[in-house]
């Protein structure tokens, strides 16, 4: 095991971290940097709880090695989604009273935010398809759908 120093660009802030080569980005975020909003759920990219943005794309932090994301790539976590937790999706999430236990919701929000950035006006089927990789055991899917559709409508009327 070889230790190395990595420089990471997370939420427009530069972080330095000394970890073993090949360490999962998820452990770096959570355990080394304290960005614990990104959650561990499965470790094999099946549940989506650890969804973050890498250069604007939604990815699962659990299967990324720190080595591969330390070359200036822009990493965005739930802590960086908005300044004060007031991203339109976050507001819609509160309005729809979407979360129950809340554990998967960072991943849900990051996946949804990526969707609306790419496609501001997705159909219901497009939303379902895009969100399909993020599990919720409490069964909040319908309220997540509602919140995304609410945001989409709102964006439509304000733009």
């Amino acid at each position, binding site marked *: *095991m070889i230790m190395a120093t990595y420089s990471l660009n997370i939420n427009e802030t530069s972080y330095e971290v000394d*970890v*073993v080569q090949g*360490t*999962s980005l998820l*452990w770096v975020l*959570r*355990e*080394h940097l*304290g960005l*614990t*909003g*990104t*959650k*561990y*759920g*499965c*470790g*094999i990219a*099946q*549940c989506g*709880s650890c969804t973050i943005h890498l250069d604007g794309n939604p990815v699962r932090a659990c299967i990324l090695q720190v080595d591969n994301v330390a070359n200036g790539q822009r990493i965005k*976590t*739930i*802590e960086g*989604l*908005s300044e*004060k*937790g007031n991203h339109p999706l*976050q507001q819609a*999430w*509160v309005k729809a*009273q*979407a*979360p*129950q*236990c*809340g*554990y*998967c*919701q*960072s991943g849900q*929000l990051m996946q949804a935010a990526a969707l609306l950035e790419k496609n501001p006006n997705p159909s219901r089927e497009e939303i*379902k*398809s895009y*969100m*399909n*990789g*993020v*599990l*919720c*055991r*409490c*069964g*909040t*899917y*319908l*309220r*997540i*759908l509602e919140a995304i559709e609410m945001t989409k409508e709102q964006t439509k009327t304000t733009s």
Partner: protein
Amino acid sequence: MSNTNTKTISPFSRRKFLKSSGGVALFIGASGLLPNLLSCSDSKGVQRQLTKHGVTAWVRITEDGQITIYNPAAEMGQGSMTALPLIFAEEMDADWSRVNVEFSPQESEIYGSEGWQPGSKLMFTVGSRTTKSYYPVMRKAGAQARYVLLHSAAGYWKVPFDELTTDQSEVIHEKSGQKIGYGDLVSHLSMPETLPDFTESGLKNPKDFKLIGNEIPRTEIPEKVDGSALFAIDLRLPNMVYGVLERGSMHGAKPTLTNESEILAMEGVLKVVPFDYAIGVVANTLEAALSAKDALNIEWGDALPKGFNSQEIYSTYAQRANALKKGDTVNELGDVELAMHNASKTYEADFKNDYVYHAQMEPLNAVVQVAQDGQSAEVWVGSQQGADTKLGIPDLLGIPHEAVKVNLQYLGGGFGRRSMNDFVLECGSLAKAMAPQPVKLIWTREDDVTYGAFRPLTLQRLRVSTDAQGNLTGFWHCVVGDGGNLVASGARNDHYTIPNQWVEWREASHGVRLKHWRSVGHGPNKFAIEAMLDEVAYDHSIDPIDFRRKLMINAPRALATLEKVAKISDWNSPSAEGRAKGVAFVEHGSLGTGVCEISVNYNTGQITVHRFWIALDAGVVVQPNNVKAQMEGGIIMGISSALKEQITLVDGKVQQRNYDDYQLLRMQEVPDSIETVIIPSAEHPEGVGETATPMVAGAIANAFLKLTGKRLRHMPFTPERVLEVLNS
């Protein structure tokens, strides 16, 4: 609200009140059944209380009018963090916009609600008991807080107590036109001679509720959308180290580690800690601990499950159901044998369900720190358990109950799994070995699946008799499986008038770990009962709703949910081509009837649930929108488990490891809508968290019967099983 009905029965000894320098002005606690006001002047008394109980209090008011109410129940998504303080605030007439909510300390003597025995106290977030059991506790405590404020205002203004009213955190004396905010009263607080032990009549009439029954947003949701909500797995303490365990895939198998020195030589590894059923590793980082776990070379011994093949056991279970030897009686009414003998027609069917896993999204974990001298410990955990056992840590360490502090965190899902403390004890053992360094123990998802504690596999044989008109005369229900109440709950039919009934449980045992899983035995049992009813109704060409209407003749509240759901689901109108509706009734504290509409892909065997309707009677509903959320979540968990979820064992070993081979329902598979209608009621609140899940399998099977004329009798209804049934 007026004060005329309060009944003063209990002497109140402390005359003084608490004024502290930190702006904290008032503690109103409840020690035993009666409230305590802690005196700040009596500093020794305060010290005693605080040492004994931490903060002994339900509420804190500061001079600026800010109110903090303590929530005594675990928050795992069911909304306790709002519902319980809301009940308190209702009776206190607090301005909800000025209320903060915090977790109460884990001390059941003070914060418990009535336990399983009358007069006992319990902090245990299980069995959908939170609102049901805390409703009277929080109402009384809130009313007592209000009483102290009224008393203080009466003394301050020198007016009769009975002339005072309250509204929105203000005491009002209408006669003189005076008003004073609760915060402003803080510096004029005085203690009443006695505190009333509020009876129902001294509390608000439910029709005067201002908070209860309204759409109040949940207090903890904002922190759950910005990533700041803390779960135990998020804890990071100075000098914290990381623990993991390798437990193998056969429950109870004993490990022999053959490369300990190699493991100890690995970078970052601090300690190897053997358990009877696992090998623990502690390392200075999580990644080092996980690498060491991967590198463990373990020889596993045999254990009870050895040789057990879960999918082959059903034939043995069927033989058990056939045997003359009876099991434990669960319910007996009339003479079911005679009813069978005199029947115009009898029916018999076997229903089966495979093991299922909790799959809560936050894998099990805990943080424990044991003091250097081993004489005290602190625990950070998301647990449905709590105060009463301190999660077993006092016994583990051989120290007194008071020497262990439990800091309850949000639960990333519970569903029954977090009512066990196995993971906390494991962390305690690692922390003991590492004292005084805090240890964070994390179960990987693979650990969580393979070493799960499952809802048991069962076979249920049902025998039913009818007269010539299709009236049910006898109902015989034999549950075969492991786990006692884990398999027997929900097998009674108390809301159906069936003159002769017999329910029994016949034991089987395989050494597989089992635990309560949302709605417990109700899931499999309600499936079997409701599917059986429809098979009989179908055979007599009786509409399933008409059939149940007759059965519910002596259960008006249940019947009202049936009538309501028939209406909102437009039951009598035919479904679109290729679709059909099915109905099922469930009692789990609250009463609910559900209707689903499904379609089936005849090529793939895939069942799709398009819509779900529920009518629910839960008594007084504190947070209607949250109750609806519980219904939605319960239905989705029900669909997931009825269609997809399956743990299997081969030669005693759990075959599934993660979400790739233990599939949960995903976004693309959810129904278009889940519509819940709550029947208005002033009756005592009943739990709602486990009422929806068990109605799903029966409703689907019944819709499937209507659609195809075929019977689904084995959960989960996987595409393979559906095809098999379609082709039979």
